[in-house]
């Protein structure tokens, strides 16, 4: 790929304290090409791209732009070089509008006075590229996670950069938004923009990538063409074969429902009734904004509902009371680990232990030894990659953080698992660990309700699929008969909604 | 420049004042410092910012920092007793100035009489109103001894004037800015009030600002302290009278007495520094001194 590289990371290294995270890695970005970074959770992908984004400076090695060595000490410098970055974790100001967020740091102005019309125009143009028709004056905090992710993408697109970095932009998106994003990427390719793309969805790599750089443990492993076989990619990435990506072991479901929801309504949720029996995994599918998150939060006690009831094992639960739900055996893995799942400054052990702290305490005293032992155990099972169990969870990679949230409820012995995009940002190997834990829970008589935008996961791991559309359950499919088309036709059963979300 | 030696420090003493955020006490300190300089005493001044506990801390420090004697202007009469315990224990001579210190055994108490002064102030206002009318009282920091004692004096003084009615009594915390707002509001509520009795000059001056043109004409104001600004207001005719304490004199005499006490000489147990009613008649004697 020789000398026409737009941007080169040349033998860069990076350590955090005593831990070497990137070890002499070389990656090239070419004009009009998509360079994929592939690696397990914690392999160092985000750290690598943060060197280009001006967040971290490499300890050793060089960064070359157009063949010339450059320094990128901060984000301004990165932007000045024509680099735009979509970070893995959302970086939006919730209290500000979509337009303000998209133009953050570079509002159109004259003598310091903001030109609001121009600001809105920039935002609208960026949103149009993604085919989004949201009101640009909506505060970002009112949007769902997927929409926020799209705003983040729009923000980067509006920079008109020469190099665009996309760190797991598709993790929170459903098929149709991903398709939109990819068409934008293709347009940019044609315009000669060089891109770096990170994703744990292997199918996306062949679709959009040109070549793949594989990292393992912070070391460069290989560069291969994007059409390399998936199994080969997995082997390069994890250093071993993975037998089954979706190892679902179905169990004969029990008679009595473990979780039953009756006529639940609130806000956009309309008269939802569903039952999940012991041993079952039920998937919730639907388009972005269909109300899956809202439903799961209502069942978990995280939000109020105006009518209807939730019962576990036939016992009715108080509305809007997470503690009561937890005691009844409900475990909730929320949509956004950063804002809803984790106390970032607390240790891995503490984060895993929150749901068991009170129940294992003796006369008010925390069982410190036991808590740590339990956390250590589940961390090993899930192969959480961390400095130590006492390291702040902030220092873990995104996928490993996600595993910790999951581990919390496994440790707590939750009988009813409510999962909202449970494997968002989790690598293929670790997904299998999570799926095996799901099997274990159902085998021991628990049940799982799982909202997922990942079709393979829905098809591979569930026993039944409930499809939501505009706050209703539009229909139910047995997993064997669920195909992408069948699900989509139920999901879009309300056309008006589809138009409003701008996903057509 | 203090505490150089470890012994034989008959030359150093501590003055603990309640607060220096008030010109009255600044004058008192200046009087004390000038006299200390003249006598060759190394005087260290600490300011409790009107907090009894801070003062207790400062007194405890004074007991161990090599001072040969202590002058105290107590934040509060009652608590001073406990605060002074370490000083008493250390056997240092104590002179109380301006405010009493309860039953503590002290060498001398140098003060003007707040109760008597309050009575004089009330009389001065009543007289200027020809013994009748509605008046407003401005109180000092709630719970401060000066507030309670002057209040007592006001009551005594007003008792003789049956036709004077106190329509409102509110605190402005001895503070000029606060008095400005409080009086503005009170005059709104009581437009027919013709007199304001303030527990110090600072509040009286705030009241005068609030009254604007009415000060000294439609509404008479009496203050307390005899600060420079207070005298100026008497000269201008906006303040009917102020009860002049002589803070510099209080400071000066307390140092003189402490110096004697340190040397082991006999001192007077009670030194009354005169309190004068200063009004247009005698202002010439005070102003511009």
């Amino acid at each position, binding site marked *: 790929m020789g000398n026409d590289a737009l941007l080169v990371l040349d033998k860069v290294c990076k350590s955090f304290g005593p831990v070497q995270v990137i070890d002499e890695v070389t990656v090239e970005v070419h004009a009009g090409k998509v360079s994929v970074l592939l690696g397990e959770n914690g392999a160092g992908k985000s750290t690598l791209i943060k060197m280009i984004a001006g967040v971290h400076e490499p300890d050793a090695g060089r960064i070359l732009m157009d063949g010339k060595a450059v320094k990128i000490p901060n984000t301004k410098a990165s932007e000045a070089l024509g680099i735009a970055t979509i970070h893995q974790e959302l*970086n939006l100001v919730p209290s500000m509008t979509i337009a303000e967020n998209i133009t953050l740091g570079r509002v159109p*102005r004259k003598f*310091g006075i903001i030109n609001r019309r121009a600001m809105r125009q920039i935002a609208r143009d960026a949103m149009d590229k993604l085919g989004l028709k949201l009101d640009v004056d909506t505060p970002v905090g009112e949007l769902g996670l997927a929409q926020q992710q799209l705003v983040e993408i729009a923000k980067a697109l509006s920079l008109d950069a020469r190099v665009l970095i996309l760190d797991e932009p598709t993790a929170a998106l459903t098929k149709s938004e991903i398709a939109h994003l990819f068409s934008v990427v293709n347009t940019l390719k044609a315009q000669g923009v060089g891109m770096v793309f990170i994703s744990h969805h292997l199918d996306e790599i062949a679709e959009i990538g040109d070549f793949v750089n594989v990292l393992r443990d912070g070391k460069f492993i290989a560069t291969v063409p994007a059409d390399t076989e998936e199994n080969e990619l997995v082997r390069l990435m994890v250093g071993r074969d993975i037998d089954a990506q979706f190892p679902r072991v179905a169990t004969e479901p029990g008679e009595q429902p473990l979780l039953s929801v009756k006529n639940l309504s609130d806000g956009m949720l309309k008269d939802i009734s569903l039952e999940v029996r012991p041993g079952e995994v039920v998937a919730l599918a639907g388009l972005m904004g269909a109300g899956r998150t809202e439903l799961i939060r209502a069942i978990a006690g995280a939000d109020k509902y105006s009518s209807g009831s939730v019962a576990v094992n036939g016992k009715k639960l108080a509305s809007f009371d997470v503690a009561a739900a937890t005691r009844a055996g409900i475990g909730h893995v929320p949509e956004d680990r950063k804002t809803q799942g984790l106390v970032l400054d607390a240790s891995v052990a503490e984060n895993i232990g929150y749901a068991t702290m009170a129940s294992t305490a003796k006369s008010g005293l925390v069982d410190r030894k036991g808590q740590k032992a339990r956390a250590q155990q589940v961390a090993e099972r899930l192969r959480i990659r961390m400095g130590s169990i006492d390291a702040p969870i902030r220092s873990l990679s995104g996928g490993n953080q996600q595993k910790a949230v999951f581990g919390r409820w496994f440790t707590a012995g939750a009988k009813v698992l409510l999962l909202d995009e449970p494997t968002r940002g989790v690598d293929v190997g670790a997904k299998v660990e999570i799926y095996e834990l799901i099997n274990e829970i159902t085998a021991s008589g628990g049940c799982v309700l799982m909202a997922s935008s990942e079709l393979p996961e829905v098809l591979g791991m569930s026993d039944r699929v409930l499809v939501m559309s505009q706050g209703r359950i539009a229909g139910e499919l047995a997993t064997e008969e669920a195909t992408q088309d069948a699900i989509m036709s139920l999901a879009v059963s309300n056309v008006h909604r589809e138009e409003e979300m701008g996903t057509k | 420049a203090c505490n150089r030696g470890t012994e034989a420090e008959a030359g150093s003493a501590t003055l603990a004042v309640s607060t220096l*955020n008030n010109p009255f006490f600044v004058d008192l300190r200046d009087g004390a410092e000038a006299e200390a300089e003249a006598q060759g005493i190394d005087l260290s001044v600490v300011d409790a910012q009107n907090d009894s506990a801070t003062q207790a801390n400062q007194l405890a420090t004074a007991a161990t920092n090599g001072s040969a004697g202590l002058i105290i202007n107590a934040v509060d009469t009652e608590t001073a007793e406990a605060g002074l315990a370490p000083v008493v224990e250390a056997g240092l001579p104590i002179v109380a100035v301006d405010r009493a210190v309860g039953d503590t055994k002290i060498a001398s108490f140098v003060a003007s009489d707040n109760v008597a002064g309050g009575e004089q102030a009330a009389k001065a206002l009543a007289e200027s109103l020809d013994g009748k009318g509605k008046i407003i009282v401005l109180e000092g920091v709630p719970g401060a001894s000066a507030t309670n004692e002057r209040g007592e004096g006001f009551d005594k003084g007003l008792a003789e004037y049956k036709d004077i009615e106190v329509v409102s009594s509110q605190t402005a915390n001895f*503070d000029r800015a606060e008095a400005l707002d409080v009086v*503005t*509001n*009170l005059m*709104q509520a009581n437009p027919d009030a013709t007199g304001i009795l303030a527990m110090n000059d600072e509040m009286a001056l705030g009241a005068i600002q609030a009254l604007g043109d009415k000060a000294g004409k439609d509404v008479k104001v009496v203050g307390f302290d005899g600060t420079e600004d207070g005298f100026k207001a008497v000269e201008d005719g906006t303040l009917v009278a102020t009860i002049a304490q002589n803070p510099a004199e209080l400071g000066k005499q307390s140092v003189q007495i402490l110096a004697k006490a340190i040397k082991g000489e006999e001192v007077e147990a009670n030194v009354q520094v005169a309190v004068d009613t200063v009004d247009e008649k005698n202002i010439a004697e005070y102003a511009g001194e």
Partner: protein
Amino acid sequence: MSSVATAPKKGFDFKAFLANNGALVGLVILCLALFIATPRFLTGPNLLNIGIQVSTIAVMAFGMTFVIVAAGIDLSVGSVAALSAMGSSYAITTAGLPDGLSIPIGLAVGALCGWVTGAMSAYGKLPTFIASLAMLTVVRGLTLVISDGRPISTSSSVSWLGDDLGPIPMPIVILVVSGLLAAFVLNRTVIGKNAFAVGGNTEAARLSGIPVKRVLVTVFVISGVFAALSGMILAGRLDSAQPTLASGYELDAIAAVVIGGASLSGGVGRISGTLIGALVLAVIRNGLNLLSVSAFWQQVVIGAVIAIAVGFDVLRRKNVKH
């Protein structure tokens, strides 16, 4: 895409209005109650009084709004008001500089104090609470040192700030002008937007290339300048700069901003809200004085009303969300 894009606007949305103006409801109820309780409340002169009395805290709170929007807090405003007033008077009355310099000097003192606080927290990495607490003490100490604990007469240009402009008292004129200015800067300029961004999500602001440190320094300078203005209004009304001027006012100023709907965790705040917050406080004080409530009980009532006023605001906002 040539569409009209945005959602249809549905006339005047009363609920949304309440949501944005929760404290206003509290204020209106308060005024109604006072109107019923005493005929002295709703009179021209009394309203002017309230206007004058609210001006000091409100002007101070305008500046504070910038700091709070940027997720900081400025405890030093009371002391800065005093030092600025003292400095502006000292320079003329004692040091003999020309009178015309008085107000500029006062404002410069305020800006300088704000700059120091801002720099301590931006470059020295001190939490703003600590940086401004340190300044509270240092600046009050300097005021006492300069004045030797005595009041200084104000220069004639500062005195003028306490006078009338025709029928309207100057403090009210300044209140209105500085309020409009503050609202403009906060909502329409890059300075204001950057403050919102930094307060709303510092990390996102930094990653978007916003100069977070400079923004922090700027909001403190703004706060310092408004505090200085407020101090000079106060000195103008008293015709004298007091060493104890405005002490303890910081809590009132912060309360005004928060009653006005700002969040201490940053990213939210409005100048109009702040004004309403300051009015709530001023009206309570005025009303309790009018009703001659005893000084001790006044404090009890003021505290309760603060809680209730903010409570209303919280209630409104919740109702609208769901």
